[in-house]
Structures are given as C-alpha cells and as structure tokens.
C-alpha cells in the first residue's frame, strides 16, 4: 500500500517535472482569469479590493478543474490505468496518490498565482496573514480535489469526459466557493462589516471531512472490470 502509493506519486511528479504540461496550463489559466477580469471590470470605476477574494477563488476553481482531470486522462492513454489496477497492492493507493498529486498541483498553482493576483487587482495585502491564508487555500483545495478526483476517475471512462467533468464539479464547488471566499475575505479584513474567518474555516473543515470520506467509501465502485 505505502510502496504503491509512493511509486505512483513519484511517477506523476517526475512526469510533470519533465513535461510541465499540467501546471503551466493551470497557472496560465488562473493568470488569464485575473487579467480578463481586471480588463472587463473597469478598475477606475469599480473598486476591486472588495471582490478580490471572489475573483481569486473563481480563478483557482476553474484552473483546478483544468488540472484535476489530467491525472486520469494521461493514464487512459495506452490503457495504463488497467496496468495500475492489476498491479499488486491496494487500489486505495492509486486513488490516494492521484488525490495527492491533484492537491500538490493545485496548491502550488495557487501559491504561484497569488502574487500576480495581488499586484494586478491592487490588493493591499498585509504580510502577517500569510500563514492563515495559506491554510485557507489548503482547506479549500482539499475539499475541491477530494470529490474532483472521484469524478475525474469516472469522466476518464466516458465520452467527452473533459466536458462532463466541469459540469459535474460546479455544483460541488459551490460550498467551497462560499466558505473559502468568506474566510479569505475575513482574513484579508477590509470588508465592512468585518467578517470573522473562523466559523467559515470550521465549516470548510467539516465539508472537507465529508467530501474526503465519501470518495474513499465510493471509489471502489468506479474501478470494477
């Protein structure tokens, strides 16, 4: 179990370091969301700071949808997934490895894009809040990739799976979007009246527990041959 998990994790990270396919696409996409938003909403007329958390999470979630499906798409080529499934060891290792990879990609993308967003959208970010903000990013990302990995595994075996995945994922992103955006707004702290981020963070943790637990119960049903 542990060895299989480590092997798949290492393989996927190595593949990504060499090909740079997924994270370049994700970062470019998130960056473009910020760019397009900044241009479309006239920054002279509209103050961007109050909507900053929302734009941030919209960019993250759409870029995340781009990335979360890749893990299984590349295994579909040459039917490599069947090889992974019949390899000795628990199948849970495959699911957990794919989940971890999706998390690492998305979280790295978030950290890389954050400075651009701060600069482009004129966010007066105080430095001391970074650890709590990073924790919020991590919690939101966990909630997203948990159910995202489950659906990506399904979408890889359907017609037009790359179209289907966002359709399935949008309803599941709604709680993450609301909870993470409010928590971020509370942490950044320039909305009036002030928002306490902790209730939102606690709710986000609860969401993460439910939507990490459910895929772990249900993933077995995806891979029956």
């Amino acid at each position, binding site marked *: 179990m542990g060895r299989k998990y480590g092997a798949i994790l290492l393989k996927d990270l190595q593949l990504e370091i060499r090909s740079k396919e997924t994270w370049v696409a994700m970062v470019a996409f998130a960056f473009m969301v910020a760019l397009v938003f900044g241009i479309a909403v006239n920054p002279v007329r509209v103050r961007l700071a109050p909507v900053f958390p929302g734009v941030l999470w919209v960019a993250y979630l759409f870029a995340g949808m781009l990335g979360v499906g890749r893990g299984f798409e590349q295994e579909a080529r040459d039917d490599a997934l069947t090889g992974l499934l019949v390899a000795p060891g628990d199948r849970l290792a495959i699911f957990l490895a794919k989940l971890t990879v999706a998390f690492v990609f998305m979280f790295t993308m978030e950290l890389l894009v954050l400075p651009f967003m701060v600069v482009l959208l004129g966010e007066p970010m105080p430095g001391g809040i970074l650890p709590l903000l990073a924790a919020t990013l991590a919690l939101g990302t966990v909630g997203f990739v948990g159910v995202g990995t*489950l659906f990506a595994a399904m979408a890889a075996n*359907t017609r037009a799976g790359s179209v289907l995945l966002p*359709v399935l994922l949008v309803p599941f992103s709604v709680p993450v979007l609301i*909870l993470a955006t409010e928590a971020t707004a509370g942490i950044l702290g320039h909305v009036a009246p002030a928002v306490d981020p902790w209730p939102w963070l606690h709710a986000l943790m609860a969401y993460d527990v*439910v939507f990490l637990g459910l895929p772990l119960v249900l993933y077995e*049903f995806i891979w029956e041959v």
Partner: protein
Amino acid sequence: MTKRQTRVRTGTWWLWLMAAIWVVALYLNFIYTPDAKYLLSSERIFYVHMGSATAMTFVYGITFVASIGYLWRRRLAWDRWAAASAEVGTLLTTMVLVSGIIWGRTAWGSWWTWDPTITTTLILWVLFLGYLLLRDWTDDRERRARYASVLAIVAFFLVPLDYYAVYFLKSIHPAVITTHGVNLAPSMVLAMLVSMVAFMFLAAAWILIRLRLLAAQDYVQEIQDRVRTPLDSM
C-alpha cells in the same frame, strides 16, 4: 439459460385514476378557492409550485434509495428506477423553478433572489442535468449504472451542505426577502393538499411510463446480445 429476462408491463388503468384526481385538483385550484388578499389570482400558481416541489422531494428520494439498491444488489431493475426517477425529478425541478420565478416576479417584484431555498433548487437542477449527461455519455450499460449510482449518492450529501452554505452567507448579509409567511385559508390548505397528491400521482405515472420504456430498451439489448454472441465467436 438461467439469466432472468426483463419483463415489460403495459396496463394503463391507473391513468384514469390520475385523471380523476387531477380534475378535482384543478377544480379546487381555480374555482373553489378564493383569490388571495394581496396577491389576487397570481397566488394560484402556488399550488403548482408546492405540488411539484413535494413530488420532487419524493422522487429524488427514490433516486437515492434506488442508487444504493443498485450498488448493493446489482440488478438493472434498481438502476432503471434511479434513471426514471432522476429524469422525472429534473422535470419537476424545472417546473418548481419556472413557477417560482413567475410567482416571484408578481409577489416580490424580482424574477430571482439568491435565497437559500431557491439557490439550492437551482444547484439541484444543474446537478441532475449533469447526472443525466453522465448517464447519456457512459456507453457501457453496467458501468453507466454504477457511475450514476455513485454520483446520486454523493449528490444526496451535497444538497443540505449547499443549503446551509448559502443560508449562512445570507444570514450574515441581511437578506432583502425573508421566507414567505403565507397564512393560508382552510380552503387553500385543502387545495394545496389535493394539489400535492395530484402531482405525486403525475410523477408516479411518469416514472412508471419511463420504467417501462427503459425496461423495453434493456430487453431489446438482451435480445441483441443473445443474437450477436454466436456470430461474433465465429
């Protein structure tokens, strides 16, 4: 051949029972009940709204139970129940949304508000459109049943979470419109209850019709598979 054949039924007597209930329901909705005090006759769309919303809840309940049943028992009959109820449920959700939007325009003066109940219904609608797409785009019959069941079960846990997420958001930002405190006259309560029953019958009838069609589809597939197998092995 030990494999159970799919049975297809064809009786229609219950359609007459449904027609009778609908005549009573329409009479109560449009003639028996008085106009509402401020909303006047626009209030009558409420019976459609409430009826389809109640039926929708039960129908999605069937989808959830049938999905668990399929993963547990692995009989395609369970999956046909899930498929038929999800289709009818999506249709009922559309009716709830459309009637709600029209009513909201006359009663509140705006087509749409981001109230938790309304928002959750919209999310539910998108969710089940995705469910129907997933069914449609999964070619293998058995795999379609499995994937659809998994999605329906996850969706069942999502809906209350969606509701509370929007609810907390709205409770912090003051909502313009709070939930309707409609005080119904006794005759209206009667009309509402009969309307609910009528819509339940309608949903049941639709589900039965879809079940028969799906069973017929599976039956045709069984025959095709049986005919094809010896030829392919040659």
